[in-house]
């Protein structure tokens, strides 16, 4: 067994992920050598994952408030008013490092963690989303990781009983050594019944609830704050093991307990487990906290204080309870068959004291561990601007040939193989299933709907972090607008490489600034989020990937628009300006074999105008078929609409722009609408009168898709090509 008084050597400090100057800071702070448990606690609290020490300076600059925002970043999840006394509570969080080491368990515990964040605040989870990024399909690890991650996400959400309604999946060689698993959960609560983590009152019982503590996940947060190397397999014990059944019980017990009025403060045990939850509750409330580890329910005998404080066993909660309601609270947990133990109490000392077998194992200043942890101003360099690529610099391929190829590529093909493994229908409120621009979930018992979308285009962020950051927000805004939802708030999951490298830090700063500018311009505040750094293996970083989870609100789900072309012979309207921007496009990647040049710029003013215009049309019930334009441009968008509706369409060439640039350019701020001709003509007239570029560019009808003068393609064939890649890839031998 590890002794608590082992000498603290430089090697031991290093293995805890602490830098020499950080260790010196510990010595200065406590005036003596720390015990082993104390070193573990510092390592758990001061790692990048928990302390945000490299990112905090920049996160503080982001727009986090707005008239609807009840709670911004800093709590377990963001809280946004949706009217009628209700709030939507949501957050996205990464589980990248564990998912690469152990895909199934890494992904399940990612989902479990984010669900817990949401119901810790008193909300019942109503939807999950996820943004997944994997290495190139031919990389020997990719298939194994895809298979495990998808099964893990499904395995947890399906059993827990929340619909997983959508997300994104992409492949790129830059994720060969580090996959990204970003899970988002959305819940609903009454605005006057929201629970927070700030402890109040001295001498109140601190209660441990849920599953028992085991040795899984010890040091998980520290592992997630470091790069990978060739010895990655050795990190497997740092990955936690998920139990969705216990989480479902914990959900029901927690919500039932909250109704008793017993809860003063509540914090789930996530990264850094008992340490982080206890310190956060105390530090936020300007209180001390004393824990007696003899009372902690353990899965196995002989666990040391060090192990208990660093375990990341799942499905656990810490609460501060009103002492007079303790018996009622305990009865609720016993009914659900969960552990309930008083493990400590609040103090007025501002110390975090941990006792085990009558001995003081740790005695540390709580504020410095928590909200006054180190903060760095890392040096950074802005990425060099890249040149604008003209249409002439990218080879022209026959439009029909190009479309058939693009819609069958790993990045652009149907994700049905993935989302059919997720229960996306449970709870009976899924109004828009996966495969559209945004998922739509009805607010139980009302006509209102929540739109939810996950977006980012990492290759744009790599080429120009600022524009890429703007684009991620703009696309979320556009996807929500395309279903008819007013975008109300954002959660962000900022995934980057090693922030100690100035160029990586420059990507981070650029993306944060771009995101911030877009959020301000679109009245789309950030209410929660997570930063995942050190996504690097042997010095190779991932693409900068600030995943955005957008949430929107619609008054009547029956007005919702979908991408599917309808049976009527309608006209197709293009909203927004097209120049034919091929730099960083999917087309360029497929047919020039390059990801080069500047990404398409985002004009936030027109983005907003176009979004408001389209939303207005949907709200007025004038249009029901809308699709935003993004990867693959106009050709891919109209093909997806045709496939979804099993209807043919014809779109004319532009006459001014080269065909390949017109059909595959990725200019921003654009939507396709299908509507009866009279409506379409009126829409175009209104748009143009309001200064919004709009034109009728084609019509719906028949069973073939024809783009310009290129050959017509049967929609049924396109459908087949679109669906084929994923199941074929996954059914090949691993």
């Amino acid at each position: 067994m590890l002794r608590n008084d082992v000498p603290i050597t430089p090697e031991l400090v290093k293995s805890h992920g602490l830098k020499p100057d950080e260790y010196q800071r510990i010595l200065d702070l406590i005036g003596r050598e720390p015990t082993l448990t104390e070193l573990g606690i510092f390592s758990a609290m001061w790692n990048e994952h928990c302390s945000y020490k490299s990112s905090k300076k920049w996160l503080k600059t982001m727009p986090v408030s707005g008239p609807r925002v009840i709670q911004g970043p800093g709590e377990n999840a963001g809280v946004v008013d949706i009217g009628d006394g209700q709030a939507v509570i949501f957050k996205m969080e990464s589980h990248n490092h564990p998912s690469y080491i152990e895909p199934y368990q890494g992904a399940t515990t990612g989902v479990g963690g984010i669900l817990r964040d949401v119901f810790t605040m008193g909300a019942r989870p109503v939807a999950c989303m996820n943004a997944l990024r994997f290495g190139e399909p031919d990389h020997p690890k990719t298939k194994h990781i895809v298979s495990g991650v998808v099964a893990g996400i499904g395995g947890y959400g399906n059993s827990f009983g929340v619909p997983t309604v959508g997300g994104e999946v992409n492949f790129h060689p830059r994720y060969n050594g580090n996959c990204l698993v970003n899970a988002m959960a959305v819940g609903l609560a009454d605005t006057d019944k929201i629970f927070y983590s700030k402890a109040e009152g001295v001498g109140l019982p601190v209660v441990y609830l849920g599953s028992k503590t085991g040795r899984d996940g010890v040091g998980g947060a520290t592992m997630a704050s470091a790069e990978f190397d060739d010895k990655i397999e050795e990190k497997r014990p740092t990955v936690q093991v998920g139990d969705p059944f216990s989480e479902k019980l914990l959900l029901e017990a927690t919500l039932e307990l909250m109704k008793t009025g017993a809860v003063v403060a509540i914090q789930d045990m996530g990264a850094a487990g008992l340490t982080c939850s206890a310190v956060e509750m105390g530090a936020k409330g300007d209180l001390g906290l004393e824990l007696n580890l003899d009372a902690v329910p353990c899965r196995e005998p002989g666990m040391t204080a060090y192990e208990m404080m660093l375990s990341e066993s799942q499905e656990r909660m810490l609460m501060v309870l009103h002492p007079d309601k303790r018996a009622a609270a305990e009865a609720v947990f016993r009914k659900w068959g969960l552990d309930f133990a008083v493990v400590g109490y609040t103090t007025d000392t501002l110390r975090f004291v941990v006792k085990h077998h009558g001995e003081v194992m740790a005695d540390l200043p709580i504020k410095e561990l928590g909200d006054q942890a180190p903060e760095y101003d890392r040096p950074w360099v802005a990425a060099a601007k890249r040149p604008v690529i003209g249409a002439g610099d990218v080879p022209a391929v026959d439009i029909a040939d190009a479309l058939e190829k693009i819609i069958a590529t790993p990045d652009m093909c149907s994700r049905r193989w993935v989302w059919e493994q997720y229960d996306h229908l449970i709870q009976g409120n899924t109004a828009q299933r996966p495969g559209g621009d945004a998922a739509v979930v009805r607010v139980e018992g009302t006509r209102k709907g929540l739109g939810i979308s996950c977006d980012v285009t990492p290759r744009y962020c790599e080429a120009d972090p600022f524009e890429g950051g703007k684009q991620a927000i703009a696309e979320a805004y556009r996807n929500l607008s395309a279903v008819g939802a007013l975008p109300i708030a954002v959660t962000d999951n900022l995934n980057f490489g090693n922030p100690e490298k100035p160029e990586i830090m420059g990507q981070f700063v650029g993306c944060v600034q771009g995101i911030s500018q877009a959020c301000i311009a679109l009245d789309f505040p950030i209410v929660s989020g997570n930063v995942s750094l050190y996504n690097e293996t042997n010095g190779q970083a991932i693409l900068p990937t600030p995943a955005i989870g957008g949430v929107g609100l619609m008054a009547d789900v029956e007005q919702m628009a979908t991408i599917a072309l309808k049976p009527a012979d309608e006209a197709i309207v293009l909203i927004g300006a097209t120049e034919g921007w091929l730099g960083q496009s999917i087309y360029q990647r497929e047919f020039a074999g390059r990801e080069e040049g500047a990404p398409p710029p985002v004009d936030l003013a027109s983005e907003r105008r176009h979004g408001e215009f389209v939303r207005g049309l949907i709200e007025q019930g004038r249009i029901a078929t809308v699709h935003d334009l993004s990867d693959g441009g106009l050709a891919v968008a109209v093909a997806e609409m045709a496939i979804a509706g099993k209807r043919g369409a014809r779109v004319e060439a532009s006459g001014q722009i080269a065909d390949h640039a017109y059909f595959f350019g990725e200019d921003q701020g654009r939507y396709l609408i299908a509507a009866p001709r009279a409506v379409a003509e009126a829409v175009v007239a209104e748009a143009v009168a309001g200064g919004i570029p709009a034109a009728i560019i084609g019509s719906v009808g028949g069973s073939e898709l024809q783009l310009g003068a290129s050959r017509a393609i049967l929609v049924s064939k396109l459908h087949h090509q679109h669906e084929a890649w994923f199941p074929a890839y996954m059914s090949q031998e691993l």
Partner: protein
Amino acid sequence: MKAAVLVFPGINRETDMAKALAAVSGVKPAMVWHTDTDLPAGTDLVVVPGGFSYGDYLRCGAIAARAPIMRAVAAHAERGGLVLGVCNGFQIITEAGLLPGALVRNASMKFICKEVNLKVENRETAFTSAYRHGQVIRCPVAHGEGNYVADDGTIAELEAEGRVVFRYCDPTGHISPAANPNGSTNAIAGIINARGNVLGMMPHPENLIEALHGGLDGRPLFDSLVAALPKAA
């Protein structure tokens, strides 16, 4: 109708089921906790809903089948009372011996959530009278272990007695391996006991009862039950 919906730890479609029962019958069902030993007085329909009872870490439905409330359910069935088991509920009542056979891992070895087509093979039941014979309906499935198996004699008996109530098919009613989402023997999606009062099915009719769900094909199942049972006082 006086319905009781059973709630085991880990069950998660009980709310969907309760909503469907209330929407169609106009009466909210009683929610009955697994440790109870009696059904509410006057219960004429017991519904065992979907989910992952006890996490389904053992054989699916095996633990729930031995919960205290299941004795009361068996007695209710013995008296001729109606029992509907959907998804995990089908697994549970099969484990409890109210229906023959077993449900094993999907042939694909993966959880599957999608809309499938079902052929109504027997409308002469209290659960299906509002459908037409041979009607092809849409219905979602969401399960990892829905592959129905039984010994040859049992299958032959089920077929001979018209006790296969729902079968997976394509939109035209054709039965084929491609239209079978889980590899079930004879594409079986739902069966009934010999007495005709216990129905188990893997698909979720409760998730297709309003326009928002994209269809209403689940509704006639509940209409049938409303017609079969006396109006609640």
